[in-house]
């Protein structure tokens, strides 16, 4: 589903790369936390998957597409199979809850009949059907993030990327958002979530990828936030684990092909709906 092999992202003018030879695999249906100090490269990793940025070196496959070589005109189709939420919600202030969610369907050419069905359904899922006609500034932060989540998943994405979605919320509200994410994950959507929220990561016991200075220093199944490693930069440990992972991606691309038919079907669905 997602495969990084030796991906390096070097920003122009930056002294050192934001990501340095990162290799990792994420399977369909996974729920992955990205943790690490500020500036460790979490957002960069997510932006690469969204193809907001392009890797400087290495290979990056997402949903069966090589994001390094994909032509720009194919990017919109890829993004329709993904959802994104951010710390700052990014809602349109002059549109109601309903209109905010509907907007994301309108602009990819969905019919009004489809929108009239899909939007209330997703608002029910996030528990906001009562507040469909409210404007964002009439909602609490947690509610606004639910709207953003509704917008991200209304097109039934295969992959949901979340960049510190609970960063602005209190613990109780955060827990609500996270249980919503779990529900979305149970429906089959792969989730990659960058976070600093210790409580959430420890409680969920999911896969945790820890970045430090653009390098993966930990990749554990069912782990917590706190690193088992000493805080000193133990680069050798990451290079210990990498050789095994480094070989994998090429083979791991093969099962990726197996996922293809499914995504093709969903894209032809969209093509029909667009007309």
């Amino acid at each position, binding site marked *: 589903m997602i495969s990084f092999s030796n991906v390096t992202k070097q920003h122009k003018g930056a002294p050192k790369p934001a990501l340095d030879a990162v290799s990792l695999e994420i399977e369909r249906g996974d729920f992955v936390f990205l943790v690490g100090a500020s500036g460790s490269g979490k957002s960069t990793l997510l932006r690469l998957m969204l193809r907001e940025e392009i890797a400087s070196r290495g290979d990056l496959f997402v949903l069966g597409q090589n994001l390094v070589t994909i032509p720009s005109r194919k990017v*919109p189709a890829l993004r*329709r199979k993904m959802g994104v939420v951010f710390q700052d919600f990014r809602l349109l202030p002059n549109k109601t809850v309903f209109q905010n969610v509907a907007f994301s369907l*309108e*602009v990819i*050419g969905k019919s009004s009949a489809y929108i009239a069905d899909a939007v209330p359904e997703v608002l029910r899922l996030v528990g906001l059907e009562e507040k469909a006609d409210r404007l964002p500034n009439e909602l609490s932060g947690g509610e606004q993030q639910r709207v953003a989540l509704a*917008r991200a998943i209304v097109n039934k994405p295969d992959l949901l990327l979340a960049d510190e979605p609970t960063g602005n919320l209190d613990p109780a509200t955060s827990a609500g958002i996270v249980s919503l994410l779990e529900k979305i994950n149970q429906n089959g959507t792969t989730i990659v979530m960058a976070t600093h929220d210790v409580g959430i990561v420890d409680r969920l016991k999911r896969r945790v990828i820890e970045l430090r200075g653009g390098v993966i220093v930990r990749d554990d199944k069912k782990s917590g936030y706190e690193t088992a490693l000493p805080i000193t930069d133990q680069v050798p440990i990451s290079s210990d684990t990498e050789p095994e992972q480094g070989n994998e991606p090429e083979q791991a691309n093969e099962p990726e092909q197996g996922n293809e038919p499914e995504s093709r079907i969903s894209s032809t669905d969209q093509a029909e709906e667009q007309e």
Partner: protein
Amino acid sequence: MKFGFLMREIGQGLSRNVSMIVSIILVTFLSLTFVGTAGLLQAQIGQMKTYWYDKAQVAIYLCTDTSPADACPQGEASSDVKATVEAALKDAALTPFVERYYFEDHQAAYDKFQEQFADNAVAKYVKKEQLNETYWVKVKDPNKSAVIVESFTGVAGVEEVRDQRSYLDQIFSILNAASIAAVGIAAIMLASAVLLISTTIRLSAFSRRREIGIMRLVGASNFYIQLPFILEGVVAATIGSVLASGAVVAIVVFFVQGYLAQRLPLTSFVGVDDALLLMPLIIGSGVVLAAIASGFAIRRYLKI
């Protein structure tokens, strides 16, 4: 693409930058009016050419006693000179070019002069011996009048050969210069229209950056994101060019036909049909220009 969505987006864009949109409309309106006026001038020149060239003749002025000595050392043209000229005009070498000709003697020239300068003091002092006897030659093809001019220039007893077209050409070159000036002004204004459109698009894209950001994230196609902006420029420019083509028609109806044609009844002027011919040209160039300008601007300011 859904029509309702598109209309709403364009409507929002237009209402958000009213002052910029109004200036696009005005600039395209003015510049295309100049383009249209230049077109009318060209049509007018064409029309006058066909009318006047048809009437233009070549004049072979024979020497008089008062002619300058270097052109006419022998003084008044003798009957031998007239015979030579007449023979040459009837000669097989020239007949393919000559439609007809006639001879104007001193008396006829004097009568014509008196008529033309009836109100002028000079009419009283001129003597008929001072006025040239002239062969007036109507050529078959006005473009080949040079043949006649060359054949008789420098012939003994001929003072000067003059193609009337050379007078007309002076008038036409003045009109031509005027239409070129109009096109030049139009070009400058069109350039500012293009800059204005691209600035407006940039402002418009900036004021909608949130929407654009979300559209990009949810996978709206470039076409879908860009089209409202392009159409925004095109709609404004279309309004301007429709106004301009209306102005060109109004110029013909009220100024040319309503004023000039009344004052100068003997001259034929461009009509409304000429203006109507220019209409699609004006509107088309306005629309194409705006589409190119905004398409270009959007590609620069809206990286996907």
